[in-house]
């Protein structure tokens, strides 16, 4: 084993391909490295050897290499059931778990001082201080360590007493804040109030961190109303954070003051901040005990807010929503956690979910915006040239509406094996058999004869589909978007590109959401493994993943706690709520 380890160390040299002609002592081990490398190909268990940080890079290189050799086996694990934008799909696509978890040992403590677990007296503190060697002052260091390890309040208090004794009864603001943090963390309300009194006495104003801690501490106590002036103090210099608002709202709800809570919520929205989901959850949790139409209307407003901003509640929030609905007297709501079928029907009640299609106005708006922001962007020369744009527009107008727009380069480069023009021809001819109007977008270099692009195959492509070739330095994606949008709602486009950069070009969040919705409904992504089998696509969504209602039913998508969702993915789990009195026929 030790034999191999010594070999590992010289990996970096192997990979840097540095032409170093030096014949150092390490040179002889090069051949050894190669044998290790061969060993890795066959079995990956070598990686259980903990690598030192310097050769991690080399190891990763080897791992990816090994993975490539394994071929498509891993890729099949991308479940064919989920659609392209399903939560967690990207993670599955990217890597099937790193074989070696990067568990770096937590950075060793520079100082070997143990954080005391019991209150110390002054001699002991003095002794401890003598042991300490560091750049910052001992008090700073020990107090931040205690805050980090959540020491007990008593220990922290003894530290403060010791500091005060040395220092004429004065404790610095930084120590006081860290002490306050511990008090708040351990929910020592009486201590929090003491510190609050001290701070009020000592300082005319505090900074945001201190205010935040005080607010969080005070809302638990009977003097919670004093947290509100503190919020006002923050407002003097900056906009309070959503956490500040969350704390205050929580405090108000805790003490049954609904009006203050709603006012604060309105204020938060007024700052154009998106409230924390916890805040919204708090309203629902509190709503269980209130039987008031006004209040329930406001809760429904929150659901509309979620819909308009395309927010998805978390799992526990979804549960709170469910319990609140079920607690409404007389209406007999029934909630169920469920999924949606491919056809866009709720598995539990059978109702159809809203289709993903954009309304005509939305469609027109999006088309305009894509044209003006993504393609033009204030300077037509950046992505294309005006001549080319004009040519393309004329071309699109002269053709009948397309059924499918193909990103030629993206499709052709999808598979490593096989000639690029060959792959493109395969895809095009398979689609052409289904009698679809096709458009292939590409660049001019595809027409030149080369090892990857054969002229005869490209000619066949041009026979079966309309083609447009942009300049080699132009971007082809904007043309794809425009052609697809121009052809109408039925038109789909084929590319594996997630189009995130083009989405980012759009001016505001609303347009970006429209774009994303359109993309979900119209993008076809080819499943891997095509050259060998028939052409298959990732499932396309037929329904829109958004909070929605039909009056007597609500469907609310939510995020599962254990699934990591990227921003360009949508949840797959739903909460289905319907009224019992109007049971659906299909059940």
């Amino acid at each position, binding site marked *: 084993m030790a034999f191999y380890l010594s070999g590992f160390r010289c990996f970096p040299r192997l990979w*840097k*391909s*540095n*032409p170093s002609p030096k014949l150092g002592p390490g040179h002889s081990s090069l051949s050894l490295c190669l044998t290790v490398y061969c060993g890795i190909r066959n079995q990956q268990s070598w990686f259980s050897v903990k690598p030192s940080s310097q050769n991690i890079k080399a190891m990763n290189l080897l791992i990816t290499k090994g993975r490539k050799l394994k071929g498509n086996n891993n890729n099949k694990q991308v479940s064919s059931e989920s659609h392209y934008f399903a939560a967690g799909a990207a993670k599955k696509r990217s890597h099937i778990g790193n074989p070696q978890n990067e568990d770096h040992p937590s950075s060793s403590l520079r100082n070997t001082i143990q954080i005391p677990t019991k*209150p*110390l*007296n*002054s*001699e002991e503190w003095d002794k401890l201080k003598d042991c300490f060697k560091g750049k910052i002052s001992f008090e*700073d260091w020990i107090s931040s360590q205690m805050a980090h390890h959540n020491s007990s309040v*008593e220990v922290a*208090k*003894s530290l*403060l*007493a*010791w*500091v*005060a*004794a040395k*220092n*004429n*009864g*004065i*404790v*610095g*603001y*930084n120590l006081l*804040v860290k002490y306050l943090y511990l008090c708040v963390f351990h929910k020592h309300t009486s201590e929090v109030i*003491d510190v609050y*009194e*001290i701070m009020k*006495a*000592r*300082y*005319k*104003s*505090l*900074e*945001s*961190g*201190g205010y935040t801690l005080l607010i969080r501490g005070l809302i638990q106590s009977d003097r919670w109303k004093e947290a509100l002036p503190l919020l006002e103090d923050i407002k*003097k*210099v*900056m*906009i309070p954070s959503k956490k500040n608002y969350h704390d205050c709202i929580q405090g108000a709800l805790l003490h049954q003051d609904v009006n203050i809570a709603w006012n604060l919520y309105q204020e938060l929205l007024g700052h154009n901040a998106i409230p924390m989901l916890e805040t919204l959850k708090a309203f629902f949790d509190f709503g269980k005990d209130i039987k008031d139409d006004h209040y329930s209307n406001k809760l429904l407003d929150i659901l509309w807010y979620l819909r308009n901003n395309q927010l998805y509640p978390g799992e526990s929030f979804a549960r709170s929503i469910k319990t609140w609905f079920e607690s409404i007297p007389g209406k007999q709501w029934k909630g169920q956690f469920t999924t949606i079928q491919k056809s866009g029907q709720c598995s539990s009640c059978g109702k159809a979910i809203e289709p993903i299609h954009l309304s005509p106005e939305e469609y027109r708006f999006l088309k305009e915006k894509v044209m003006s922001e993504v393609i033009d962007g204030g*300077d037509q*020369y*950046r*992505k294309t*040239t005006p001549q080319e744009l004009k040519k393309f527009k004329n071309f699109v107008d002269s053709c009948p509406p397309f059924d499918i727009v193909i990103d030629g380069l993206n499709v052709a480069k999808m598979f490593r094996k096989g000639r690029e023009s060959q792959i493109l021809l395969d895809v095009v001819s398979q689609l052409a058999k289904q009698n679809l109007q096709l458009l292939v977008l590409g660049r001019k270099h595809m027409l030149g004869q080369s090892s990857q692009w054969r002229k005869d195959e490209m000619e066949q492509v041009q026979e079966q589909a309309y083609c447009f070739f942009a300049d*080699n*330095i132009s971007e082809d994606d904007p043309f794809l978007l425009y052609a697809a949008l121009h052809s109408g709602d039925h038109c789909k486009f084929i590319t594996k590109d997630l189009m995130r950069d083009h989405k980012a070009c759009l001016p505001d969040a609303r347009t970006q959401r429209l774009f994303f919705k359109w993309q979900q409904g119209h993008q076809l992504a080819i499943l891997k493994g095509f050259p060998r089998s028939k052409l298959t696509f990732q499932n396309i969504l037929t329904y829109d993943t958004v909070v929605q209602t039909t009056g007597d039913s609500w469907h609310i998508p939510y995020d599962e706690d254990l699934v990591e969702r990227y921003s360009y993915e949508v949840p797959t789990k739903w909460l289905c709520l319907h009224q019992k009195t109007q049971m659906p026929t299909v059940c």
Partner: protein
Amino acid sequence: MSITVCFLRPFARFLVPYTLHRKRRNLYSAVLQRCMSSKIPSLSYPNKDSTSSPEQLELDGWKTAMKSSMQEEDGVSTVSSKEDTLAATRELIEMWRLLGREVPEHVTEAELKVIMECPSKSAQKKYLRYLFCKERKKKAKQIKKEVKAEAREKAKLLETTEEAEQKDFLFLRLWDRLISNAWGWKGVQAMQFGQPLVFDMGYDNYMNLKELHNTVSQLLESEGCNRRNVDPFHIYFCNLKLDSAFHRELVRRYGEKWDKLLLTATEKSYVDLFPKDNIIYLTADSPNVMTTFKHDKIYIIGSFVDRNSQRGMSLAKAKRLNLATERLPLDKYLQWEIGNKNLTLDQMIRILLSMKNTGSWEEALKFVPKRKHAGYLEISQASQEVYSKLKKTKILNSFPKGSLNVQRWKR
């Protein structure tokens, strides 16, 4: 209130000579002012005696002491709300400083206004951090200066004791002036016969203030490099609008030297000054790779520091004017590791100057920052060909293999 003195005292000790010396009273922070005027605390700590005995510390004693020191001034009349927020921000910064955050000690009115105009909290934090670093650097410089001055004083004392003996010299010690004279001559020559090198100043709309300042710094550096070279370029600043931000900043940095610079600054575009076919726009986005340095072409460098990575700005510009574009052959010669392929303006001019004088890419690309690449790739195809060609001719018109001549060549 009186307590503040205690923990501010160490700072005050440093502050007072500094501020008084520089006569900048407005630097006083609000808190400091208050503490300077307040009384020395006459408070006795109730627990003082108990600590001398090895008993347990009394845990809550310090609180009473802290509480008993109430703020004294409460009746301060409130001023207008604008000044109120200014003062509040000042105090906030002061509290952050007590907390050990990276904020400056002194903030001027102008800086405060910038802070309050920051669009977001992170922008505020960034600006405060910038001020903090600036202050720290300034302080370090000041200290260094003082140390140096002290050392000089000492050296002077020593020197005066030694009798300066008479010696025979050929030249007076006037090196700096003579050198700059010589540079001036060369610069004038370059103005007459030098190869033009254009800096395109048409990017001021795409940059924020910080980027613009960085650009001007890089321009200054480039101009300095050019001046010192054996065979300088004739520099053009094209598209430089009078009284634009660029122009103002350049004039500010150069001072009165601006009008005496040996370069051409013009509002005109390069397409008006030079024939279009001779222009080559250098941009990292270009699809064409620069293979050799051509002495009859006019190279254009965009004076553009691009922190927001607005891709393809300069390529779009060249496309619009239908100009040839080229990029440096970085990938061909270097094993690129990290960082943007965009180089700074002074690195660009150094590379171009080196190419102009030697024509070897290996030599020229030494100016690419070392952190960005892992080293040179093996001898490229082109130079290998040259090598073999040279070898052939050498062997042909000299002695057969194995002779002394070949041996020397191999070395």
